[in-house]
Protein backbone atom coordinates (compact mmCIF):
# COMPACT_ATOMS: atom_id res chain seq x y z
CA UNK A 1 0.00 0.00 0.00
CA UNK A 2 2.85 2.35 0.98
CA UNK A 3 4.57 1.59 -2.31
CA UNK A 4 1.44 2.47 -4.28
CA UNK A 5 1.01 5.69 -2.31
CA UNK A 6 4.59 6.68 -3.19
CA UNK A 7 4.05 5.86 -6.87
CA UNK A 8 0.81 7.86 -6.95
CA UNK A 9 2.62 10.79 -5.30
CA UNK A 10 5.22 10.57 -8.07
CA UNK A 11 2.52 10.57 -10.77
CA UNK A 12 0.82 13.54 -9.12
CA UNK A 13 4.08 15.48 -8.75
CA UNK A 14 4.99 14.92 -12.40
CA UNK A 15 1.54 16.14 -13.51
CA UNK A 16 1.77 19.18 -11.25
CA UNK A 17 5.20 20.07 -12.64
CA UNK A 18 3.77 19.74 -16.16
CA UNK A 19 0.77 21.92 -15.29
CA UNK A 20 2.98 24.57 -13.70
CA UNK A 21 5.24 24.60 -16.77
CA UNK A 22 2.24 25.87 -18.77
CA UNK A 23 0.78 28.14 -16.10
CA UNK A 24 -1.34 30.28 -18.41
CA UNK A 25 -2.91 27.18 -19.93
CA UNK A 26 -3.56 25.85 -16.42
CA UNK A 27 -5.21 29.10 -15.42
CA UNK A 28 -7.33 29.12 -18.59
CA UNK A 29 -8.49 25.56 -17.90
CA UNK A 30 -9.50 26.56 -14.36
CA UNK A 31 -11.40 29.58 -15.73
CA UNK A 32 -13.05 27.42 -18.39
CA UNK A 33 -14.44 24.88 -15.93
CA UNK A 34 -15.50 27.57 -13.44
CA UNK A 35 -17.14 29.47 -16.32
CA UNK A 36 -19.33 26.54 -17.36
CA UNK A 37 -20.20 25.80 -13.76
CA UNK A 38 -21.18 29.44 -13.17
CA UNK A 39 -23.62 29.26 -16.08
CA UNK A 40 -25.35 26.30 -14.42
CA UNK A 41 -25.43 28.13 -11.07
CA UNK A 42 -27.02 31.13 -12.82
CA UNK A 43 -29.67 28.76 -14.24
CA UNK A 44 -30.45 27.35 -10.76
CA UNK A 45 -30.69 30.88 -9.33
CA UNK A 46 -33.14 31.73 -12.09
CA UNK A 47 -35.24 28.63 -11.33
CA UNK A 48 -35.51 29.71 -7.69
CA UNK A 49 -36.93 33.07 -8.73
CA UNK A 50 -40.02 31.12 -9.84
CA UNK A 51 -40.27 28.53 -7.07
CA UNK A 52 -39.36 28.18 -3.41
CA UNK A 53 -38.73 24.46 -3.68
CA UNK A 54 -37.77 21.77 -6.21
CA UNK A 55 -40.72 19.36 -5.83
CA UNK A 56 -43.51 19.86 -3.32
CA UNK A 57 -42.57 18.88 0.24
CA UNK A 58 -39.13 17.54 -0.75
CA UNK A 59 -37.23 20.00 1.45
CA UNK A 60 -35.03 21.06 -1.46
CA UNK A 61 -35.44 24.80 -1.00
CA UNK A 62 -32.80 27.22 -2.27
CA UNK A 63 -30.00 26.78 0.31
CA UNK A 64 -30.29 22.98 0.71
CA UNK A 65 -30.42 22.68 -3.09
CA UNK A 66 -27.21 24.71 -3.43
CA UNK A 67 -25.63 22.42 -0.79
CA UNK A 68 -26.71 19.58 -3.11
CA UNK A 69 -25.09 21.30 -6.10
CA UNK A 70 -21.93 21.96 -4.05
CA UNK A 71 -21.70 18.29 -3.09
CA UNK A 72 -22.02 17.34 -6.76
CA UNK A 73 -19.25 19.80 -7.66
CA UNK A 74 -16.90 18.38 -5.02
CA UNK A 75 -17.48 14.74 -6.04
CA UNK A 76 -17.27 15.41 -9.76
CA UNK A 77 -14.13 17.50 -9.43
CA UNK A 78 -12.36 14.66 -7.58
CA UNK A 79 -13.33 12.17 -10.30
CA UNK A 80 -12.48 14.59 -13.11
CA UNK A 81 -9.10 15.35 -11.56
CA UNK A 82 -7.99 11.87 -10.55
CA UNK A 83 -9.58 9.37 -12.92
CA UNK A 84 -11.00 10.91 -16.10
CA UNK A 85 -7.69 12.02 -17.70
CA UNK A 86 -6.21 8.50 -17.39
CA UNK A 87 -9.41 6.82 -18.59
CA UNK A 88 -9.58 9.10 -21.62
CA UNK A 89 -5.97 8.32 -22.47
CA UNK A 90 -6.67 4.59 -22.43
CA UNK A 91 -8.41 4.80 -25.84
CA UNK A 92 -5.20 5.98 -27.44
CA UNK A 93 -3.11 3.44 -25.50
CA UNK A 94 -5.24 0.56 -26.80
CA UNK A 95 -5.13 1.85 -30.37
CA UNK A 96 -1.37 2.40 -30.43
CA UNK A 97 -0.35 -0.56 -28.31
CA UNK A 98 0.97 1.69 -25.54
CA UNK A 99 -0.99 -0.43 -23.09
CA UNK A 100 1.63 -3.18 -23.49
CA UNK A 101 4.15 -1.04 -21.61
CA UNK A 102 1.81 -0.79 -18.64
CA UNK A 103 1.00 -4.52 -18.58
CA UNK A 104 4.65 -5.56 -18.30
CA UNK A 105 5.28 -3.31 -15.29
CA UNK A 106 5.38 -5.01 -11.86
CA UNK A 107 2.37 -2.98 -10.76
CA UNK A 108 -1.37 -3.49 -10.71
CA UNK A 109 -2.46 -2.46 -14.23
CA UNK A 110 -5.79 -1.02 -13.06
CA UNK A 111 -3.97 1.22 -10.57
CA UNK A 112 -1.61 2.62 -13.23
CA UNK A 113 -4.34 2.99 -15.88
CA UNK A 114 -6.66 4.74 -13.43
CA UNK A 115 -4.27 7.16 -11.78
CA UNK A 116 -1.22 7.88 -13.93
CA UNK A 117 -2.53 11.26 -15.08
CA UNK A 118 -3.89 13.89 -12.67
CA UNK A 119 -5.66 17.04 -13.89
CA UNK A 120 -5.15 19.62 -11.13
CA UNK A 121 -7.23 22.26 -12.90
CA UNK A 122 -10.34 20.11 -12.29
CA UNK A 123 -9.99 20.79 -8.55
CA UNK A 124 -10.99 24.42 -9.24
CA UNK A 125 -14.67 23.43 -9.40
CA UNK A 126 -14.26 21.46 -6.18
CA UNK A 127 -12.90 24.51 -4.38
CA UNK A 128 -15.85 26.57 -5.61
CA UNK A 129 -18.05 23.69 -4.40
CA UNK A 130 -16.56 23.93 -0.91
CA UNK A 131 -17.20 27.69 -0.88
CA UNK A 132 -20.78 27.16 -2.07
CA UNK A 133 -21.32 24.50 0.60
CA UNK A 134 -20.13 26.85 3.36
CA UNK A 135 -22.37 29.64 1.97
CA UNK A 136 -25.41 27.33 1.82
CA UNK A 137 -24.92 25.77 5.27
CA UNK A 138 -24.46 29.19 6.89
CA UNK A 139 -27.88 30.26 5.56
CA UNK A 140 -29.83 27.11 6.35
CA UNK A 141 -32.31 26.82 9.23
CA UNK A 142 -31.09 23.34 10.02
CA UNK A 143 -27.48 22.93 11.18
CA UNK A 144 -25.90 19.53 10.42
CA UNK A 145 -25.14 17.43 13.51
CA UNK A 146 -21.86 15.73 14.44
CA UNK A 147 -22.94 12.42 12.87
CA UNK A 148 -23.75 14.22 9.61
CA UNK A 149 -20.29 15.82 9.60
CA UNK A 150 -18.63 12.43 10.18
CA UNK A 151 -20.71 10.68 7.52
CA UNK A 152 -20.45 13.45 4.90
CA UNK A 153 -16.79 12.92 3.85
CA UNK A 154 -17.26 9.15 3.96
CA UNK A 155 -20.33 9.39 1.72
CA UNK A 156 -18.42 11.70 -0.64
CA UNK A 157 -15.83 8.94 -0.92
CA UNK A 158 -18.68 6.47 -1.63
CA UNK A 159 -19.91 8.77 -4.41
CA UNK A 160 -16.38 9.01 -5.84
CA UNK A 161 -16.07 5.19 -5.66
CA UNK A 162 -19.35 4.68 -7.57
CA UNK A 163 -18.38 7.19 -10.26
CA UNK A 164 -14.88 5.73 -10.48
CA UNK A 165 -16.39 2.27 -11.03
CA UNK A 166 -18.49 3.64 -13.89
CA UNK A 167 -15.47 5.38 -15.44
CA UNK A 168 -13.32 2.28 -15.26
CA UNK A 169 -16.08 0.10 -16.74
CA UNK A 170 -16.47 2.55 -19.63
CA UNK A 171 -12.68 2.38 -20.02
CA UNK A 172 -12.95 -1.43 -20.05
CA UNK A 173 -15.36 -1.06 -22.96
CA UNK A 174 -12.52 0.77 -24.74
CA UNK A 175 -10.31 -2.29 -24.39
CA UNK A 176 -13.05 -4.61 -25.66
CA UNK A 177 -14.21 -2.44 -28.56
CA UNK A 178 -10.79 -1.13 -29.57
CA UNK A 179 -12.17 2.40 -29.81
CA UNK A 180 -14.47 4.45 -27.67
CA UNK A 181 -14.15 8.03 -28.76
CA UNK A 182 -17.32 9.11 -27.03
CA UNK A 183 -16.26 8.04 -23.52
CA UNK A 184 -16.68 11.59 -22.28
CA UNK A 185 -20.10 11.91 -23.99
CA UNK A 186 -21.32 8.70 -22.35
CA UNK A 187 -20.02 9.97 -19.04
CA UNK A 188 -21.76 13.32 -19.44
CA UNK A 189 -25.14 11.82 -20.35
CA UNK A 190 -24.96 9.18 -17.62
CA UNK A 191 -24.00 11.56 -14.82
CA UNK A 192 -26.59 14.05 -16.03
CA UNK A 193 -29.21 12.04 -14.08
CA UNK A 194 -27.33 12.59 -10.81
CA UNK A 195 -27.41 16.39 -11.09
CA UNK A 196 -30.80 16.78 -9.43
CA UNK A 197 -32.44 15.44 -6.25
CA UNK A 198 -33.85 11.93 -6.68
CA UNK A 199 -37.31 13.18 -5.63
CA UNK A 200 -37.84 14.82 -9.02
CA UNK A 201 -38.01 11.37 -10.63
CA UNK A 202 -41.59 10.45 -9.77
CA UNK A 203 -44.73 9.35 -11.60
CA UNK A 204 -45.26 6.44 -14.00
CA UNK A 205 -41.99 7.11 -15.86
CA UNK A 206 -39.95 8.73 -13.11
CA UNK A 207 -40.46 5.94 -10.56
CA UNK A 208 -38.95 3.15 -12.70
CA UNK A 209 -36.18 5.52 -13.85
CA UNK A 210 -35.38 6.32 -10.22
CA UNK A 211 -35.24 2.60 -9.35
CA UNK A 212 -33.03 1.89 -12.36
CA UNK A 213 -30.63 4.71 -11.43
CA UNK A 214 -30.57 3.64 -7.78
CA UNK A 215 -30.38 -0.15 -7.85
CA UNK A 216 -29.00 -1.08 -11.28
CA UNK A 217 -26.67 1.84 -12.10
CA UNK A 218 -26.47 3.53 -8.67
CA UNK A 219 -25.85 6.98 -10.13
CA UNK A 220 -28.60 8.57 -8.03
CA UNK A 221 -26.86 7.60 -4.77
CA UNK A 222 -23.68 9.48 -5.70
CA UNK A 223 -24.72 13.03 -4.81
CA UNK A 224 -28.13 12.48 -3.24
CA UNK A 225 -27.01 10.60 -0.14
CA UNK A 226 -24.18 12.89 1.07
CA UNK A 227 -26.19 15.99 0.11
CA UNK A 228 -29.26 14.76 2.01
CA UNK A 229 -27.15 13.94 5.09
CA UNK A 230 -25.60 17.42 5.23
CA UNK A 231 -28.54 19.51 4.02
CA UNK A 232 -31.57 17.84 5.61
CA UNK A 233 -32.38 16.40 9.06
CA UNK A 234 -31.27 12.77 9.45
CA UNK A 235 -34.29 10.44 9.49
CA UNK A 236 -34.83 6.67 9.42
CA UNK A 237 -35.02 6.80 5.62
CA UNK A 238 -31.71 8.68 5.64
CA UNK A 239 -30.00 5.81 7.44
CA UNK A 240 -31.35 3.40 4.81
CA UNK A 241 -29.84 5.59 2.10
CA UNK A 242 -26.50 5.67 3.93
CA UNK A 243 -26.46 1.87 4.06
CA UNK A 244 -27.43 1.75 0.36
CA UNK A 245 -24.59 4.15 -0.55
CA UNK A 246 -21.94 2.13 1.30
CA UNK A 247 -23.23 -1.15 -0.19
CA UNK A 248 -23.45 0.32 -3.69
CA UNK A 249 -19.90 1.72 -3.43
CA UNK A 250 -18.49 -1.68 -2.34
CA UNK A 251 -20.47 -3.60 -4.97
CA UNK A 252 -19.54 -1.10 -7.74
CA UNK A 253 -15.82 -1.36 -6.94
CA UNK A 254 -16.03 -5.16 -6.94
CA UNK A 255 -17.98 -5.42 -10.20
CA UNK A 256 -15.78 -2.84 -11.93
CA UNK A 257 -12.66 -4.74 -10.83
CA UNK A 258 -14.04 -7.99 -12.29
CA UNK A 259 -15.12 -6.28 -15.53
CA UNK A 260 -11.79 -4.46 -15.95
CA UNK A 261 -9.70 -7.60 -15.31
CA UNK A 262 -11.91 -9.57 -17.75
CA UNK A 263 -11.40 -6.84 -20.37
CA UNK A 264 -7.62 -6.85 -19.81
CA UNK A 265 -7.49 -10.63 -20.23
CA UNK A 266 -9.10 -10.19 -23.69
CA UNK A 267 -6.65 -7.48 -24.76
CA UNK A 268 -4.64 -8.30 -27.86
CA UNK A 269 -1.67 -6.05 -28.44
CA UNK A 270 -1.88 -3.61 -31.35
CA UNK A 271 1.89 -3.28 -31.62
CA UNK A 272 4.19 -5.76 -33.31
Amino acid at each position, binding site marked *: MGRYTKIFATFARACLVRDMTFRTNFLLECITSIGWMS*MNLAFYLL*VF*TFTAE*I*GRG*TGWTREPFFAFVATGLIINSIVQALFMPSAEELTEMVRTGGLDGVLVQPLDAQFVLSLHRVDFSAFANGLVGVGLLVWSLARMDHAPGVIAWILYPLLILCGVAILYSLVIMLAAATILLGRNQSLYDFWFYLTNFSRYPAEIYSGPWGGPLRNLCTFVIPILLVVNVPARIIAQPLTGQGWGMVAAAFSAAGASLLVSRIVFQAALSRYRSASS
Partner: protein
Amino acid sequence: MTAATPSAAAHSRPRPFEGLRMWWMMLVISLEERLAYRGDFILGTLMRFLPIVTQLFLWTAVFSATNAADIAGYSRNDIVAYYLLTMITRAFSSMPGLAGGIARSVRDGSVKKYLVQPIDYVSFLLASRIAHKLVYYAVAVFPFAGVFFLCRSFFPPVPDAATIAIFLLSLLLSFLLGFFLEATLGMLGFWFLEVSSIVFAYMLLQYLLSGHMFPLDMLAGIGTGIPGVSLGSVVHWLPFEYTAYFPAAIWLGKIHGTELIRALVIEAVWVVVMAVACRIAWRRGTRRYSAFGG
Protein backbone atom coordinates in the same frame (compact mmCIF):
# COMPACT_ATOMS: atom_id res chain seq x y z
CA MET B 1 1.23 37.32 -49.40
CA THR B 2 -0.97 38.40 -52.33
CA ALA B 3 -3.84 36.63 -54.02
CA ALA B 4 -3.61 35.29 -57.60
CA THR B 5 -3.95 37.88 -60.36
CA PRO B 6 -7.45 38.19 -61.92
CA SER B 7 -6.25 36.98 -65.32
CA ALA B 8 -4.70 33.84 -63.81
CA ALA B 9 -7.84 33.25 -61.77
CA ALA B 10 -10.06 33.60 -64.86
CA HIS B 11 -7.82 31.27 -66.83
CA SER B 12 -8.01 28.46 -64.27
CA ARG B 13 -11.69 28.91 -63.30
CA PRO B 14 -13.59 25.61 -63.78
CA ARG B 15 -16.58 25.48 -66.14
CA PRO B 16 -20.07 25.62 -64.54
CA PHE B 17 -20.91 21.92 -64.95
CA GLU B 18 -17.53 20.87 -63.61
CA GLY B 19 -18.21 23.00 -60.54
CA LEU B 20 -21.60 21.40 -60.04
CA ARG B 21 -20.12 17.93 -60.45
CA MET B 22 -17.44 18.75 -57.89
CA TRP B 23 -20.07 19.89 -55.35
CA TRP B 24 -22.19 16.81 -56.04
CA MET B 25 -19.16 14.57 -55.41
CA MET B 26 -18.44 16.42 -52.14
CA LEU B 27 -22.02 15.86 -51.05
CA VAL B 28 -21.94 12.15 -51.94
CA ILE B 29 -18.62 11.66 -50.10
CA SER B 30 -19.97 13.45 -47.00
CA LEU B 31 -23.12 11.33 -47.10
CA GLU B 32 -21.15 8.09 -47.42
CA GLU B 33 -18.90 9.20 -44.56
CA ARG B 34 -21.94 9.72 -42.30
CA LEU B 35 -23.61 6.49 -43.38
CA ALA B 36 -20.47 4.44 -42.70
CA TYR B 37 -21.04 4.97 -38.97
CA ARG B 38 -24.85 5.39 -39.16
CA GLY B 39 -25.56 3.29 -36.04
CA ASP B 40 -23.06 5.30 -33.97
CA PHE B 41 -24.36 8.55 -35.45
CA ILE B 42 -28.06 7.80 -34.78
CA LEU B 43 -27.23 6.61 -31.23
CA GLY B 44 -25.16 9.76 -30.64
CA THR B 45 -28.02 11.98 -31.90
CA LEU B 46 -30.54 10.17 -29.68
CA MET B 47 -28.26 10.53 -26.65
CA ARG B 48 -28.29 14.30 -27.10
CA PHE B 49 -31.96 14.26 -26.14
CA LEU B 50 -31.21 12.65 -22.74
CA PRO B 51 -30.59 15.94 -20.88
CA ILE B 52 -34.14 16.95 -21.92
CA VAL B 53 -35.43 13.97 -19.89
CA THR B 54 -33.90 15.44 -16.71
CA GLN B 55 -35.23 18.89 -17.66
CA LEU B 56 -38.70 17.37 -18.03
CA PHE B 57 -38.58 15.97 -14.49
CA LEU B 58 -36.97 19.14 -13.09
CA TRP B 59 -39.68 21.44 -14.48
CA THR B 60 -42.42 18.98 -13.47
CA ALA B 61 -41.06 19.21 -9.91
CA VAL B 62 -40.90 23.01 -10.12
CA PHE B 63 -44.50 23.26 -11.37
CA SER B 64 -45.68 20.83 -8.66
CA ALA B 65 -44.16 23.11 -6.00
CA THR B 66 -45.55 26.37 -7.38
CA ASN B 67 -49.11 25.41 -8.31
CA ALA B 68 -48.77 27.93 -11.14
CA ALA B 69 -50.25 27.05 -14.53
CA ASP B 70 -47.37 28.73 -16.28
CA ILE B 71 -43.99 30.32 -15.68
CA ALA B 72 -43.16 33.37 -17.81
CA GLY B 73 -45.99 32.31 -20.15
CA TYR B 74 -44.77 28.72 -20.50
CA SER B 75 -46.68 25.68 -19.23
CA ARG B 76 -44.68 22.58 -18.33
CA ASN B 77 -45.50 21.08 -21.73
CA ASP B 78 -44.47 24.31 -23.47
CA ILE B 79 -41.07 24.16 -21.73
CA VAL B 80 -40.47 20.56 -22.85
CA ALA B 81 -41.59 21.42 -26.40
CA TYR B 82 -39.32 24.48 -26.23
CA TYR B 83 -36.25 22.37 -25.32
CA LEU B 84 -37.02 19.96 -28.16
CA LEU B 85 -37.45 22.81 -30.66
CA THR B 86 -34.17 24.41 -29.60
CA MET B 87 -32.53 21.12 -30.59
CA ILE B 88 -33.71 21.82 -34.16
CA THR B 89 -32.52 25.43 -34.00
CA ARG B 90 -29.13 24.37 -32.66
CA ALA B 91 -28.87 21.84 -35.49
CA PHE B 92 -29.03 24.84 -37.85
CA SER B 93 -27.01 27.44 -35.98
CA SER B 94 -24.23 25.45 -34.32
CA MET B 95 -21.00 25.29 -36.33
CA PRO B 96 -18.74 22.81 -34.57
CA GLY B 97 -15.08 23.31 -35.36
CA LEU B 98 -15.59 26.25 -37.74
CA ALA B 99 -13.79 29.00 -35.78
CA GLY B 100 -11.06 26.65 -34.54
CA GLY B 101 -10.59 25.25 -38.08
CA ILE B 102 -10.12 28.71 -39.62
CA ALA B 103 -7.66 29.74 -36.90
CA ARG B 104 -5.75 26.47 -37.35
CA SER B 105 -5.51 26.98 -41.11
CA VAL B 106 -4.03 30.43 -40.43
CA ARG B 107 -1.63 29.03 -37.85
CA ASP B 108 -0.37 26.08 -39.88
CA GLY B 109 -0.27 28.04 -43.14
CA SER B 110 -2.80 25.92 -45.05
CA VAL B 111 -5.00 29.00 -45.59
CA LYS B 112 -2.53 30.24 -48.23
CA LYS B 113 -3.84 27.77 -50.80
CA TYR B 114 -7.09 29.77 -50.86
CA LEU B 115 -5.08 32.89 -51.62
CA VAL B 116 -3.46 31.43 -54.73
CA GLN B 117 -6.45 29.41 -55.97
CA PRO B 118 -9.43 31.00 -57.73
CA ILE B 119 -11.65 30.16 -54.78
CA ASP B 120 -13.15 32.60 -52.33
CA TYR B 121 -12.38 31.17 -48.89
CA VAL B 122 -15.54 32.40 -47.12
CA SER B 123 -17.77 31.10 -49.96
CA PHE B 124 -15.94 27.78 -49.91
CA LEU B 125 -16.44 27.45 -46.15
CA LEU B 126 -20.12 28.35 -46.50
CA ALA B 127 -20.67 25.84 -49.32
CA SER B 128 -18.95 22.99 -47.50
CA ARG B 129 -20.87 23.83 -44.32
CA ILE B 130 -24.16 23.69 -46.28
CA ALA B 131 -23.14 20.28 -47.68
CA HIS B 132 -22.28 18.96 -44.21
CA LYS B 133 -25.52 20.30 -42.74
CA LEU B 134 -27.62 18.75 -45.54
CA VAL B 135 -25.96 15.40 -44.94
CA TYR B 136 -26.48 15.78 -41.20
CA TYR B 137 -30.21 16.51 -41.65
CA ALA B 138 -30.60 13.59 -44.08
CA VAL B 139 -29.45 11.16 -41.40
CA ALA B 140 -30.55 12.99 -38.22
CA VAL B 141 -34.12 13.36 -39.47
CA PHE B 142 -34.86 9.78 -38.36
CA PRO B 143 -33.88 10.06 -34.65
CA PHE B 144 -35.39 13.56 -34.54
CA ALA B 145 -38.68 12.34 -36.06
CA GLY B 146 -38.78 9.42 -33.61
CA VAL B 147 -38.26 11.62 -30.54
CA PHE B 148 -40.72 14.29 -31.73
CA PHE B 149 -43.34 11.64 -32.47
CA LEU B 150 -42.93 10.14 -28.98
CA CYS B 151 -43.13 13.62 -27.43
CA ARG B 152 -46.00 14.90 -29.61
CA SER B 153 -48.31 15.33 -26.59
CA PHE B 154 -46.07 18.14 -25.27
CA PHE B 155 -46.61 20.27 -28.38
CA PRO B 156 -49.45 22.72 -28.99
CA PRO B 157 -51.43 22.28 -32.27
CA VAL B 158 -49.35 22.77 -35.41
CA PRO B 159 -49.27 26.52 -36.25
CA ASP B 160 -50.67 27.98 -39.48
CA ALA B 161 -48.75 27.97 -42.76
CA ALA B 162 -47.57 31.59 -42.38
CA THR B 163 -46.05 30.87 -38.95
CA ILE B 164 -44.36 27.74 -40.31
CA ALA B 165 -42.93 29.80 -43.20
CA ILE B 166 -41.57 32.43 -40.78
CA PHE B 167 -40.20 29.63 -38.58
CA LEU B 168 -38.33 28.17 -41.57
CA LEU B 169 -37.05 31.63 -42.54
CA SER B 170 -35.79 32.21 -38.98
CA LEU B 171 -34.03 28.81 -39.10
CA LEU B 172 -32.34 29.73 -42.36
CA LEU B 173 -31.24 33.07 -40.90
CA SER B 174 -30.03 31.32 -37.73
CA PHE B 175 -27.83 29.10 -39.90
CA LEU B 176 -26.32 32.13 -41.63
CA LEU B 177 -25.93 34.02 -38.36
CA GLY B 178 -24.23 31.05 -36.66
CA PHE B 179 -21.93 30.64 -39.65
CA PHE B 180 -20.86 34.29 -39.94
CA LEU B 181 -20.49 34.70 -36.16
CA GLU B 182 -18.16 31.74 -35.85
CA ALA B 183 -16.33 32.46 -39.10
CA THR B 184 -15.61 36.01 -37.88
CA LEU B 185 -14.28 34.62 -34.60
CA GLY B 186 -12.09 32.23 -36.60
CA MET B 187 -10.77 35.14 -38.71
CA LEU B 188 -9.46 36.71 -35.51
CA GLY B 189 -6.81 34.00 -35.84
CA PHE B 190 -5.01 36.37 -38.24
CA TRP B 191 -4.35 38.62 -35.24
CA PHE B 192 -4.19 36.20 -32.30
CA LEU B 193 -3.25 32.83 -33.91
CA GLU B 194 -4.93 30.93 -31.07
CA VAL B 195 -8.62 31.82 -30.69
CA SER B 196 -9.77 29.08 -28.31
CA SER B 197 -10.12 31.52 -25.38
CA ILE B 198 -12.20 33.91 -27.51
CA VAL B 199 -14.34 31.02 -28.76
CA PHE B 200 -14.77 29.86 -25.17
CA ALA B 201 -15.98 33.31 -24.05
CA TYR B 202 -18.41 33.35 -27.00
CA MET B 203 -19.67 29.82 -26.19
CA LEU B 204 -20.20 30.82 -22.57
CA LEU B 205 -22.31 33.84 -23.52
CA GLN B 206 -24.04 31.83 -26.20
CA TYR B 207 -24.89 29.03 -23.75
CA LEU B 208 -26.55 31.42 -21.31
CA LEU B 209 -28.05 34.07 -23.60
CA SER B 210 -29.18 32.02 -26.60
CA GLY B 211 -32.03 30.35 -24.73
CA HIS B 212 -30.32 26.97 -24.91
CA MET B 213 -30.78 26.46 -21.13
CA PHE B 214 -34.20 28.05 -20.61
CA PRO B 215 -36.80 30.14 -22.48
CA LEU B 216 -35.45 33.70 -22.51
CA ASP B 217 -38.88 35.07 -21.53
CA MET B 218 -37.85 34.03 -18.00
CA LEU B 219 -35.32 36.89 -17.99
CA ALA B 220 -38.08 39.50 -18.32
CA GLY B 221 -38.21 40.04 -14.57
CA ILE B 222 -34.44 40.16 -14.01
CA GLY B 223 -33.14 43.69 -13.57
CA THR B 224 -29.95 45.10 -15.06
CA GLY B 225 -29.42 47.89 -12.55
CA ILE B 226 -30.76 50.42 -15.07
CA PRO B 227 -34.31 51.50 -14.11
CA GLY B 228 -36.95 50.06 -16.46
CA VAL B 229 -34.48 47.88 -18.38
CA SER B 230 -34.68 44.12 -17.78
CA LEU B 231 -32.08 41.59 -18.82
CA GLY B 232 -34.72 40.10 -21.13
CA SER B 233 -35.08 43.33 -23.10
CA VAL B 234 -31.29 43.69 -23.47
CA VAL B 235 -30.93 40.10 -24.72
CA HIS B 236 -33.44 40.75 -27.55
CA TRP B 237 -30.97 43.19 -29.13
CA LEU B 238 -28.04 40.75 -29.00
CA PRO B 239 -27.42 38.11 -31.71
CA PHE B 240 -27.38 35.10 -29.37
CA GLU B 241 -31.12 34.49 -28.98
CA TYR B 242 -31.53 34.07 -32.74
CA THR B 243 -29.37 30.95 -32.62
CA ALA B 244 -31.69 29.00 -30.28
CA TYR B 245 -34.65 30.82 -28.69
CA PHE B 246 -36.22 32.76 -31.54
CA PRO B 247 -37.31 29.99 -33.97
CA ALA B 248 -38.59 27.85 -31.04
CA ALA B 249 -40.60 30.79 -29.69
CA ILE B 250 -42.11 31.40 -33.15
CA TRP B 251 -43.32 27.79 -33.43
CA LEU B 252 -44.80 27.91 -29.93
CA GLY B 253 -46.64 31.15 -30.76
CA LYS B 254 -44.83 33.19 -28.09
CA ILE B 255 -44.00 36.04 -30.48
CA HIS B 256 -46.65 37.72 -32.65
CA GLY B 257 -47.36 40.66 -34.94
CA THR B 258 -45.04 43.66 -34.91
CA GLU B 259 -42.85 42.08 -32.24
CA LEU B 260 -42.23 39.14 -34.57
CA ILE B 261 -41.45 41.41 -37.53
CA ARG B 262 -39.13 43.53 -35.39
CA ALA B 263 -37.26 40.42 -34.18
CA LEU B 264 -36.94 39.07 -37.75
CA VAL B 265 -35.50 42.41 -38.87
CA ILE B 266 -33.02 42.39 -35.94
CA GLU B 267 -31.98 38.85 -36.89
CA ALA B 268 -31.55 39.79 -40.58
CA VAL B 269 -29.54 42.90 -39.59
CA TRP B 270 -27.26 40.76 -37.41
CA VAL B 271 -26.71 38.38 -40.34
CA VAL B 272 -25.70 41.30 -42.58
CA VAL B 273 -23.51 42.87 -39.86
CA MET B 274 -21.69 39.60 -39.19
CA ALA B 275 -21.32 38.80 -42.92
CA VAL B 276 -19.74 42.23 -43.48
CA ALA B 277 -17.57 41.84 -40.34
CA CYS B 278 -16.43 38.43 -41.60
CA ARG B 279 -15.55 39.85 -45.02
CA ILE B 280 -13.67 42.82 -43.48
CA ALA B 281 -11.79 40.51 -41.11
CA TRP B 282 -10.80 38.29 -44.08
CA ARG B 283 -9.61 41.26 -46.19
CA ARG B 284 -7.65 42.90 -43.38
CA GLY B 285 -6.38 39.60 -42.05
CA THR B 286 -5.01 38.39 -45.38
CA ARG B 287 -3.36 41.79 -45.89
CA ARG B 288 -1.28 41.37 -42.73
CA TYR B 289 -0.83 37.61 -43.11
CA SER B 290 2.63 36.07 -43.33
CA ALA B 291 2.53 32.47 -44.56
CA PHE B 292 3.85 30.43 -41.66
CA GLY B 293 4.37 26.75 -42.24
CA GLY B 294 5.42 24.75 -45.24
